[in-house]
């Protein structure tokens, strides 16, 4: 792809999200979302093979549906209440429709079906962008409307997402699909807490972005997209492979790694809001995800899979691709938990 086009697309990607961040009128927000979608479509088809094109098509259809529905809901709200402002949505029809549309955009259950297939069709970098950057704009909108949405819908979507994220990931061997289901599960956790403490949801999203970035970049380092490829990645970069174990466990939410922080704070907040059963069920569903993360750790570092003698030497060569972002996000994924009080002070108060 021509560097100019590439630059333009990247720029527009940023522009779209930023426009949505900065808007308080629904039409501007919608515009930002559409620019975002349109910008990423060519990026997804950069490699013209049919699988990528198929993924792009699915992505376009679902995102367009969602955006159209956002427009419809905001227009209905304007018609019924005369309000265009995002945080002044009051009519239940509009808020529920907006919630579902944002759920479709983010890839929350029960409308998550496009997510695994789309991410599977893309290369690791674009999948990374899809999992991280593309969640920011809809999430910003969600933050603003969450106080007016029916709490039952939010809770149902959240719990269902964590469940589906757990169950879905268990039968997978493709890493991108695993990370897709992991995204669904983590977003479910965020939606659970967004009605009680929006700053906590933001923190959760931030931590999730950092963790997923390090996961994707680590996989990109060894170009592994399946579990089998991951099993032989220790020969290519032993240090990163051993850290990959810890990154996966951080995604699973195990103390003393960073991934524990959002889960811990969310459970605490839920219990404070007198919802211990909900907290219990959410924690139980986290166990499902833990299993497939552990299985990945198992194949990555805890066992040695069969190799030929010549395959044992790649680590001696200079790596062909290095990302400066990888060490930063990896360290943040592993070591941020002791800073929880400081982070809490910054985020909430």
């Amino acid at each position, binding site marked *: 792809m021509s560097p100019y086009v590439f630059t333009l697309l990247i720029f527009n990607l940023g522009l779209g999200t930023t426009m949505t961040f900065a808007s308080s009128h629904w039409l501007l927000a919608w515009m930002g979302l559409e620019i975002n979608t349109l910008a990423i479509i060519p990026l997804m088809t950069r490699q013209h093979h049919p699988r990528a094109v198929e993924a792009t098509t699915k992505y376009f259809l679902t995102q367009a*549906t969602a955006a159209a529905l956002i427009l419809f809901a905001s227009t209905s709200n304007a018609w019924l209440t005369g309000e265009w402002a995002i945080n002044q949505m009051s009519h*239940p029809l509009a808020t*529920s429709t907006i919630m579902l549309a944002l759920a479709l955009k983010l890839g929350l259950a029960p*409308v998550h079906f496009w997510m695994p*297939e789309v991410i599977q069709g893309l290369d690791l970098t674009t999948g990374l962008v899809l999992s991280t950057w593309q969640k920011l704009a809809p999430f910003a909108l969600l933050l603003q409307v969450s106080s007016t949405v029916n709490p*039952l*819908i939010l809770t149902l979507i959240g719990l269902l997402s964590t469940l589906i994220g757990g169950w879905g990931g*268990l039968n*997978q061997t493709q890493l991108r699909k695993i990370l897709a289901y992991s995204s669904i599960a983590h977003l479910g956790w965020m939606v659970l807490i967004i009605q009680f403490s929006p700053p906590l949801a933001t923190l959760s999203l931030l931590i999730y972005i950092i963790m997923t970035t390090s996961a994707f970049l680590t996989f990109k380092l060894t170009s592994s997209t399946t579990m089998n490829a991951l099993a032989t990645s220790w020969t290519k970069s032993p240090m990163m492979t051993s850290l990959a174990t810890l990154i996966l466990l951080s995604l699973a939410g195990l103390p003393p790694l960073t991934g524990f922080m959002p889960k811990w704070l969310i459970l605490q907040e839920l219990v404070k809001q007198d919802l211990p059963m909900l907290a219990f069920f959410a924690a139980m569903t986290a166990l499902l995800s833990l299993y497939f993360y552990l299985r990945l750790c198992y194949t990555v570092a805890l066992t040695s899979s069969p190799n030929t003698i010549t395959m044992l030497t790649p680590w001696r060569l200079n790596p062909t691709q290095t990302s400066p972002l990888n060490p930063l996000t990896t360290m943040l994924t592993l070591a941020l938990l002791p800073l929880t009080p400081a982070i809490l002070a910054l985020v909430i108060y």
Partner: protein
Amino acid sequence: MHTTTLAMNTSLLMIFALLIFPLLTSLSPTPLHKTWAVTHVKTAVKMAFLVSLLPLFIFLNEGAETIISTWHWMNTLVFDINLSFKFDHYSIIFTPIALYVTWSILEFAFWYMHADPNINRFFKYLLLFLIAMITLVTANNMFQLFIGWEGVGIMSFLLIGWWYGRADANTAALQAVIYNRVGDIGLILSMAWFMMNTNSWEIHQMFINSQNLDLTLPLMGLILAATGKSAQFGLHPWLPSAMEGPTPVSALLHSSTMVVAGIFLLIRLHPLMENNQMALTTCLCLGALTTLFTATCALTQNDIKKIIAFSTSSQLGLMMVTIGLNQPQLAFLHICTHAFFKAMLFLCSGSIIHSLNNEQDIRKMGGMHNLAPLTSSCLTIGSLALTGTPFLAGFFSKDAIIEAMNTSHLNAWALVLTILATSFTAVYSLRVVFFVSMGFPRFNTSSPINENNPLIINPLKRLAWGSIIAGLLITLNLLPSKTPIMTMPPLLKLSALLVSILGLLLALELASLTSKTFKALPNLPLHSFSNMLGFYPSIIHRLTPKLNLILGQKIATQMIDQTWFEKIGPKGVSSINLPMIITTNDVQKGMIKTYLTLFFLTLILALFISII
């Protein structure tokens, strides 16, 4: 120190020293010479008996009892255990009797076990048993009593299983230990209760401190202990099985000394029981049931030792009844007189068995009166004493007990049972005498029968003298602590004698039927019930292990392995989750239209939720 005190304490501690000395000599590495058993053990017991007569006569003369506390063993801030010997009238009278009987039995055992290569070890075991028994009897605190209690239990195990090559002997020894252990649970329960609530194991202190407490629980524990050790109904099968041991063992342990330990415990701790109606009724009914049941079982046994064993059990039931009547002194009297004639009965049976080349079945004996006159005479004397023939030893205790029973307000059922058992005593005693000494011999004439050995004759004579005059001697010299009721209707007074005579006549009639064919077919159900010991061992010895094993299997295999681990635990989790996982993945068919339809439906649902 005062002369009396000095004499008593010294002689009592000399008894222990005399008995322990042969044991210490056996610890030396040089092997013991062949007659060590006689020169050391029997002599020591004889000396100890003679020494024990001194305290006995001092007691009879002056009424002097003594408690010797010698050594602070384990003393904490709140609890003391000392080495303390109590020689009150019970232990002062019982110790000489026990030593006398043991002396006779040891002399007899030297003849009986003459061909045994381990005879020295046998005598060592018997001596160790005797020391444990004396410890039990003279204990002033529960700890020492428990030491003696366990000691006699273990020695019983070792001695019953003396011929350990025989599987039946091993089974019998195990039975003895297990049944005794069940009783020990009760004893330990009581000891713990007393430790917690009266803060002492010293017997006199227990009496004082427990005056206002509710003693039902520890008394039930003590009764359980007595049930185990003294073979009351429920824990009785070990006593007939214990006849697998050599005859001297049966004579010493299972007739005179060990089995009375349970009753002795209740006698010692009787002041605790005096006012507890529940404990007294339990003793009464349990004793009555025991005495009738075991007397019934004795009616149809064919092994001479088993008949005598059941007779022991029946007399122990009678002692328990006496305790239930609140008459500990009569029970003690019966213990003392019973020791003489029961030991003699066992020695007679041992002599007969040995003479007939180890034949124990009474159906294969007969005519011994002409072949072994002294033995069968002693057998007769012993049987007469057992049935309570007036003015022999057994009469003074048995008749007094039955009189006391007839004149007290108590459970009529217990009364009837005891009277019935008394008549059965006469029946089976006559049966033994009839089959063994009367009639014509029913055995091969291959073994020479010669009882002219002083080792047999002297013990039998000594014990025969005891069986005749011991009752009179003890009764004359003991002041009863409870007033006996002297006046009663003549029928009640004569009831014991009448039922015994009735039993005797019935037994004579039945005995005369043995040479006639009165009925073509025998009445088997009653006979089977009696012969199979009421089917109690058959049921309990098979049912209890089977139930325990089934319980073990249910818990270990079914509950833990199969249910918790498989259905509910790990495999349950995976089997529940698997359909959900499959469903979640199968929905992803790549059909956008389906996805968007589902989205549309979810939207409708959400709108419904929000609007309603």
